């Protein structure tokens, strides 16, 4: 796999992260389901997954960048596994609605495991780590740049919505309202 192809795959992975963050917003705004603290932590770790690909696009693929994504994915898998286990008892309805039979934290666990497998798979291709600067655009081209700014924008919007939801104190265990908007309502 050439460096250029690896960068295209990294850009695609950023679009995948952006899709996950956008899907979480769809549940939040369309279904009016506010994310619990553990759900927010999983969102943060999905966003953290994107740092490695951003560095790969800017500086070229390096094993250390992939390692960063692996660490974020493992931490995310631990957090989502905990939430799955919290609701594993028979009769427990789970937290939030289910999508295609699985709750969002179960999808998150599958997403983090998929990320671990895909990062491990892309690490198998050594040629991407060879110097190939002559054919590589400085910042990966418009496709990759759009992916980077999309993920950054979605993460920045999450800063605002999380502040609105949690306010300046601890986030509620089972949030029903936006803390900072309750006086305005």
């Amino acid at each position, binding site marked *: 796999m050439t460096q250029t192809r690896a960068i295209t795959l990294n850009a695609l992975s950023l679009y995948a992260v952006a899709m996950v963050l956008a899907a979480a917003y769809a549940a939040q705004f369309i279904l009016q389901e506010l994310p*619990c*603290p*553990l*759900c*927010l*932590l999983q*969102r*943060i*770790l999905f*966003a*953290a997954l*994107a*740092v490695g690909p*951003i*560095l790969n696009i*800017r*500086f070229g693929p390096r094993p*250390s960048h992939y390692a*960063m994504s692996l*660490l*974020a994915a493992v*931490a995310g898998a*631990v*957090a989502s596994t*905990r*939430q799955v286990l*919290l*609701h594993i008892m028979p009769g427990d309805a789970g*937290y939030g609605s289910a999508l295609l039979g699985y709750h969002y*934290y179960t999808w998150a666990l599958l997403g983090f495991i998929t990320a671990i497998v895909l990062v491990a798979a892309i690490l198998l291709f050594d040629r991407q780590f060879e110097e190939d600067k002559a054919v590589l655009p400085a*910042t990966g081209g418009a496709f990759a740049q759009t992916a*980077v700014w999309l*993920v*950054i924008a979605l*993460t*920045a919007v*999450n*800063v605002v919505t*999380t*502040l609105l939801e*949690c*306010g*300046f*104190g*601890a*986030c509620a*265990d*089972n949030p029903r309202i936006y803390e900072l908007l309750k006086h305005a309502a």
Partner: protein
Amino acid sequence: MEFTILFLGTAIVMLIAWRGQRPLALGLFGAVLVACVATYLHHATDTLKLSF
């Protein structure tokens, strides 16, 4: 509030990864990840009614 700070930290790491210095991005990423794990462990040791 800690989740807002973690999201803000992640957004800053992304911006530095894209526009700033690589070693700074790596260091800050490590700090955010440690903070995420610390937040997880802090909440995981609380008595929980629901997901947290």
